[in-house]
């Protein structure tokens, strides 16, 4: 019940954020150079053709009419059609291929990071000033300072090329297709999905892994110094239980925040990794559509990213409230 009210409030806030993003990207069209008609019309088109195109795209109305239509359409989930490929629905184009692909990559990278980073950070903090700690610190320093494009290229060069069965340069199947095939009795697609996903997720996740390792280590060290840890030991709680149930749990609070923010940026912003691996994700699509002045698509992508961002943040806030009960009181 408590969580329900909390969630409701967050969803209400989120709607405002999405509306804001939608408005800003709409207004952006009027202050950026280049327009869809010029991009679409043949170079030798006369005024008549241009006027017809403008009418067809709905750009001849006054701004406030356009804005009103745009927002009311959005409210019923109608993102319109692309301004370049006129009969192609924006939502279909973005969501069912590009968005899912980026989301899968972002989530895989995050999971990879969590699975590696948190145990590494815990070990590093508990065995401070031992070779294990020094190696973990060295790794995280390296991970933070390695640029993605270089790491991606090196992984292709040093792993994908010699090993052979790890493909690069083409996008693989989507997870929902793979799972569908699995239930239909063909596990091969899932194997393909894993093969295709491995290197991009590793590339995208390395910085993230390094960051969380450091955060976990320093957070744990800070928590271990607190008086309640001594109290746990005094009551005879096993050390491992003290570490995981008390210390790590409190360390997770700041980590969850960073995780959420980072995952949000990864969805729309993994352009470099997507380019290196020809991943055909949302970031790449955005750049391509901006070059084509395809404004309905640009609007759609920005709004989808905004929705993804606020959803993740809401989930983070809920987790946060679960981890630290004091949050709920405010």
């Amino acid at each position, binding site marked *: 019940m408590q969580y329900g009210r909390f969630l409701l409030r967050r969803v209400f806030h989120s709607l405002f954020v999405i509306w804001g993003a939608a408005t800003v990207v709409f207004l952006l069209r009027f202050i950026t150079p280049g327009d869809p008609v010029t991009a679409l019309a043949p170079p030798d088109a006369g005024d008549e053709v241009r006027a017809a195109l403008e009418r067809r795209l709905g750009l001849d109305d006054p701004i406030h009419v356009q804005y009103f239509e745009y927002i009311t359409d959005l409210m019923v989930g109608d993102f319109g059609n692309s301004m370049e490929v006129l009969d192609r629905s924006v939502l279909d184009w973005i969501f069912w291929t590009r968005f899912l692909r980026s989301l899968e990559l972002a989530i895989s990278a995050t999971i990879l990071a969590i699975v590696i980073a948190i145990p590494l950070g815990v070990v590093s903090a508990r065995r401070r000033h031992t070779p294990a700690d020094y190696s973990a610190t060295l790794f995280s320093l390296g991970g933070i300072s390695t640029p993605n494009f270089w790491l991606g290229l090196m992984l292709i060069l040093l792993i994908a090329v010699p090993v052979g069965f790890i493909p690069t340069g083409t996008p693989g199947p989507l997870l929902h297709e793979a799972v569908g095939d699995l239930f239909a009795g063909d596990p091969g697609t899932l194997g393909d999905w894993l093969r295709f996903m491995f290197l991009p997720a590793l590339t995208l996740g390395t910085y993230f892994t390094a960051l969380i390792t450091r955060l976990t280590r320093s957070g744990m060290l800070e928590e271990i110094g*607190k*008086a*309640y840890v*001594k*109290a*746990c*030991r*005094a*009551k*005879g*709680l*096993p*050390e*491992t*239980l003290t570490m*995981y*149930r*008390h210390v790590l*749990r*409190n360390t997770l*609070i700041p980590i969850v925040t960073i995780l959420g923010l980072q995952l949000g940026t990864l969805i729309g912003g993994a352009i470099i990794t997507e380019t290196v691996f020809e991943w055909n994700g949302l970031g790449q699509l955005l750049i391509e559509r901006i070059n084509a002045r395809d404004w309905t698509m640009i609007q759609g992508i920005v709004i989808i990213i905004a929705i993804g961002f606020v959803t993740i943040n809401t989930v983070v806030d809920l987790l946060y409230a679960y*981890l*630290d*009960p*004091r949050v709920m009181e405010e």
Partner: protein
Amino acid sequence: MGEPILRVEDLTTRFFTEEGQINAVEGVSFDVEPGEVFGIVGESGSGKSVTALSLVDLVESPGRITNGSVWFREPALAARIREDDPDTAAADGEMVDLRRLDDNERRALRGTEFAMIFQDPMSSFNPSITVGTQIAEAVEVQRRATANPRAVRSRTQGFGLLKFLTTSMVPTVDYVSEESRDRAVELLDTVGIPDPASRATEYPHQFSGGMLQRAMIAQALATEPSVLVADEPTTALDVTIQAQILNTLGDLQAEYGMTTVLITHNLGVIARMCDRVGVMYAGEFVERGSLEDLFERPSHPYTEGLLGSSPALDNGDRRLQPIAGNVPSLLDEEMPDRCYFADRCPKAMSECLDKPPEFDADGSEGHRARCYLARDAYDPGDALPEGYFDES
């Protein structure tokens, strides 16, 4: 004197910091008899808290107990140790030396025989777990220890690896049983918390300081300890609350017959609670004895100074007489080879430039003082000239 339950011999704890070696506790020895309240009093930085932590082996890096033993009477354990190794140095009669036990044995004792109350209740509870659960954890530890003593001494304390992993990783799978939770509510009731069932589901930040200190006492009782170490249990509380907490502590101590080691800087608390007292200064016991010995016949000028600097109602027109100077540095290289108190002592003599051993003093059998005045009367003719320590 009866058989002591706790016998501390020559306990020495040092901190190895970057500034140098700090001698926080230096050769401390004392006995505690079953059921009594033994007080340790001293100024801030005299090493009394570190002594408390050394007793329960909770001294943390860079600190380390470097010498001495803590003998604890536990006949069953002593017999078992001797069975495993007849020539062991860790058992002596019915006593076992906590310092020579292996880590798991020692940790197992911490949950079951020793409990500790800390100074600041607000920071001694985990802020994100309910008070009831935290107390129930202590009950659970005790429960597992009595159900299966051998397993508790293993690394995972009778959890089984699989159960241990699932309870550690999945927060909804709880390793604290319902019975332990019920017991935690009972304990909260025992220490005088109203409406214990609903308070148990609250978080530490929803408690007041006094209530939380009560909860901490409940947590300490959960383990049904033989020895309770209370490190400044009332220092962080309001005066009115202090009195309540001391009453609760006194009642429970009498009811459960717990042996208590009470650390405080407050002589009023000592006078009210303790049977015997040790006075700490610069990491050493400068005087120890019964309550009467210390309050009626103090032998060490430092004890006299402490008494003189605390207010009392019956001589209201008397001015308080603070001890001049500051607590000395405990840094090894700065510690002189003389009586550590000599530079602040109003009765310092040339003899005091040699470090005094412990002397028997007048009064009860166990009254001892680390001062030549316990042996000889003060001779003003032998006094060190005023300002002697200023130049050096």
